[in-house]
């Protein structure tokens, strides 16, 4: 069984293709969404999901969130004394989802289709694949998030020819894809995006504004804004954001040195704060429309995906841009996972999906650095030569021929870049191949550089010297964001030594973590009361009587709900 996984910045979820439809896999708490938060318990056990998210507020030094934003880099996250790479943390989330799917399906799961933002680059994709490997999952396919959503959306609309746009604003990334449906084919015409624009940025705006308007007066300095204070404020901002979506206004509360601070925000203020973020939505859309040469007026539908598209200001912006109301048939949180499950079904050649073919594109230009000759015998390097132009349908393979520029050079370094700028210094460096050439005068040695961009969005580069027919394949070594096979082995061993918190205890642990978080947040009598409740619950847990524990947990959860309302996801 291949499962589909949406590995999100804020939340992750899994789905499976079963009996001719895609179904969401519930986690240990019975929820669809698992927060992409990983932490260590006081005992050193790994916590993933809701419990970890609660502990982000009480134990920020032992917890990590939003690590997807660092995928493909070598930035580490410290949990206590241990340092984790982003792909390791992602692998722990994937492992939790895998366990959920196994519990639900009653069989072992070894393969998965994992979604990635369309605009993820080569290193980020490789890191995602490695995260799967570290979690014991063979990533059969990486699927672009908007493409996955399009699969979920277009699956039942294949009979009609149509053009639609997927607007995917997730927790950390923004993607746009333009699709055309014809003759039963789903074809991505163009994709674009912004890897650093998502719901989290809207939360940051609220945090920043709170600091400016309330925090500074109360004496909170920038340097205080870390650890618990920052996490509490972010949590409050997240809640307020949701409140605003529902009731057009919300409040941020913060307890700072025994003083209770609060700030009311309504939708107008929030939208004003987010003006610069909203302005960034237009560019990728316009670019994609231009590349696909589809005028905005020709679109049959604009489909919203991603939790952040729930915000009214985003919907209003989309409505203004397209002069129409966007489609909201899909559950914005689940569409991508469902689409990934459809892809898993396609991969497994499920009979119900026999006629579906989906083609995707490469969302950015890939090429190599070249030197250009100026005047007589003068060369200047640093220029970008595109090999695969952006929005080329993939899989694609292209060859360019280059020749030597220096007399008697014996080695050619082929540097691979991604980006749209004419100068490589403004593009993203992906890797380098070194190639030996027979030393001959400039221009007399030529080599073919072949770029092959596969269906997973992974790049392979091959260079052949024409005179010697010597071929080198690119193993990207210079990229610190990608682990080497040896390192993967080492990390696997290290991860195997980690103790994972038992899955059947998840509900208890989550309730306890939530109560502990509330205990820290509240003051006075309520705090005292909560303390008693926690002690009582811990006592029941010690007896290990399942029925009693369940009862006690339900009572506690109800109590917590009464204090702060239902938990959000």
């Amino acid at each position, binding site marked *: 069984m291949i499962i589909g996984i949406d590995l999100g910045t804020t939340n992750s979820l899994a789905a499976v293709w079963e009996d001719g439809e895609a179904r969401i896999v519930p986690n240990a708490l019975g929820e669809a969404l698992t927060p992409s938060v990983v932490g260590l318990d006081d005992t050193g056990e790994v916590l993933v999901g809701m419990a970890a998210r609660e502990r982000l507020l009480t134990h920020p030094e032992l917890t990590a969130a939003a690590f997807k934003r660092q995928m493909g880099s070598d930035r580490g996250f410290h949990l206590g004394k241990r340092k984790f790479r982003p792909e390791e943390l992602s692998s722990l989330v994937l492992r939790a989802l895998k366990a959920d799917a196994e519990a639900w399906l009653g069989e072992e799961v070894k393969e998965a289709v994992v979604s990635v933002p369309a605009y993820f680059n080569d290193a980020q994709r490789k890191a995602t694949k490695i995260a799967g490997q570290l979690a014991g999952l063979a990533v059969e396919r990486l699927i672009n998030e908007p493409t996955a959503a399009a699969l979920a959306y277009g699956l039942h609309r294949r009979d009609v020819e149509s053009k639609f746009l997927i607007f995917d604003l997730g927790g950390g990334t923004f993607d746009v894809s333009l699709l055309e449906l014809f003759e039963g084919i789903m074809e991505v015409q163009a994709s674009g995006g912004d890897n650093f624009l998502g719901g989290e940025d809207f939360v940051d705006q609220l945090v920043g504004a709170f600091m400016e308007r309330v925090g500074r007066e109360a004496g909170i300095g920038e340097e205080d804004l870390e650890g618990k204070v920052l996490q509490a404020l972010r949590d409050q901002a997240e809640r307020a954001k949701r409140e605003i979506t529902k009731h057009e206004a919300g409040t941020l509360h913060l307890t700072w040195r025994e003083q209770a601070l609060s700030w009311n925000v309504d939708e107008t203020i929030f939208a004003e704060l987010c003006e610069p973020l909203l302005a960034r939505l237009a560019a990728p859309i316009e670019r994609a429309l231009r590349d696909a*040469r589809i005028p905005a007026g020709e679109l049959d539908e604009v489909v919203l995906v991603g939790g952040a598209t729930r915000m009214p200001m985003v919907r209003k912006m989309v409505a203004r841009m397209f*002069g129409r109301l966007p489609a909201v048939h899909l559950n914005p949180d689940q569409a991508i996972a469902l689409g990934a499950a459809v892809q898993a079904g396609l991969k497994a050649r499920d009979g119900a999906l026999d006629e579906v*073919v989906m083609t995707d594109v490469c969302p950015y230009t890939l090429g190599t650095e070249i030197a250009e000759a100026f005047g007589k015998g003068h060369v200047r390097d640093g220029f970008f030569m595109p090999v695969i132009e952006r929005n080329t349908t993939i899989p694609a393979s292209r060859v360019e021929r280059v020749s030597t520029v220096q007399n008697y050079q014996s080695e050619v370094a082929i540097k691979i870049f991604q980006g749209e700028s004419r100068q490589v210094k403004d593009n993203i460096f992906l890797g380098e191949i070194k190639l030996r050439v027979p030393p001959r005068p400039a221009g007399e040695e030529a080599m073919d550089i072949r770029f092959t961009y596969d269906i997973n969005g992974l790049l392979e580069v091959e260079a052949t010297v024409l005179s010697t027919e010597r071929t080198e394949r690119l193993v990207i070594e210079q990229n610190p964001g990608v682990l080497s096979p040896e390192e993967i082995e080492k990390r696997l061993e290290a991860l195997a030594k980690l103790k994972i918190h038992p899955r059947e205890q998840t509900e208890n642990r989550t309730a306890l973590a939530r109560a502990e978080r509330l205990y820290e947040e509240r003051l006075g009598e309520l705090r005292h009361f909560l303390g008693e409740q926690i002690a009582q619950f811990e006592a029941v847990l010690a007896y290990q009587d399942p029925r009693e524990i369940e009862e006690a947990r339900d009572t506690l959860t109800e109590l917590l709900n009464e204090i702060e309302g239902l938990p959000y996801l």
Partner: protein
Amino acid sequence: MNIWRELGIEATRDIREIRRAYAVRLKEAHPEDDPEGFERLRTAYEQALAAARGADGLPGFTGRRAAAAEVETVETAPGPAADPGSIAVEALLARVAEGLARGDDEAAVSSLSEALQDPRLTNLELRARFERRLLEEIARLDWTSEPAAAAAIEAFYWNEGVGHLPAGHQEIARGLLGIRGTRDRLETLRQEGRGWFWKFLIDQDPLAAALLTGRFRPRLFRWLALDRGIFNAVARLLRELRIYYPSLLDRDLDPRTVDWWRRSVERPKGRLATASHYLMSAYWFYAGIVLAAGYGLDVAWPDWLLAALIIVGMLDLFIDAMPLVGTGVYLLLATGPRALTTLGVAGALGCGWLAMRLERPWDGLAVGLSFIFLMALSGARDFMAFLYGAFGLWLVLGVLFRLFGLLELDLELLFLGTQAATFAALKLRRLIERLRAA
């Protein structure tokens, strides 16, 4: 590859049929299982579509160039002028045109960015309409404000491609891109020009920029203008600037410098007028020495001068600007008191220079062999005389050609030609002497 065979249909311009054929074949050449087959199919499909669309007569496919003609048809077309969107677009355009009409860059930029910020242009359809109308307006007003062009390019991503526009509009957008391209290039050049000396060693363009921006003292740059490479680089840059970025010429560059270049580049009269500067130049200097040496005047050279000339000669290996300086150097070395030892040094320098200069070592070797050959034929003494004569002639002709622009002859070719001529002259003189003696 026959695209129609790949698609499995007869050649057609019916897009619908092409798509259907593609869909059928796609199930066999599935991108997941058969990437290579898929690629072949995809290439065929895209080519077939392009052919069909081309034949359909997309706007501008009539073969008429001329943005203006295209624009006219668009303007006079009975468009949906009455709808509120068009009215809004026209109102915004009128404001931009007003700003442009005022003639200064600042007004142009601010009127344009104001219009682009208008909330009505959040709508992507209106924005696209505004984009086209703006291009038409730019063509109508014969717009050359560089900063405003840059703002428009940035707003509509024209630098990333203009394929989405009709052909006539594409042309106008490309014109604007030309304006900005030159600006960018100059900017890079100026930045690079900072370490001008080292850049000077490897490249001419930054040097040209440095010359134009008045980074050099006027006297110095006039000397440098003697090098054809530098001269052409400056001429090229100046030409581009005049076409695409006239405001920079007036505003950012030293007007006297630009003026001098303009005169020497553009008007033959101006070039003649600069002849006096050439008199001071290395060309004449060395030509004089070489001629004197070559024709028997015995000049004794102090050691410090020789040392200085050796350094210049070394630099000559790297600097394209002064190929002739070094030539003089080894001649001087040969005439000096330590003629034989210094000849060795000079020879090494000369071979290196030739290899560099000709960029093809085989040619360098051939020239070297021709030297030896000539030496063997004429004997060492005559050979030296021959060399002086040849170089002298070469220098004189080179300067004359440069001055009057008579010939765009390669200096190397000239070198070989004069070699042969002088050799012949020497042989003739020897013959006459022998006859006289007889």
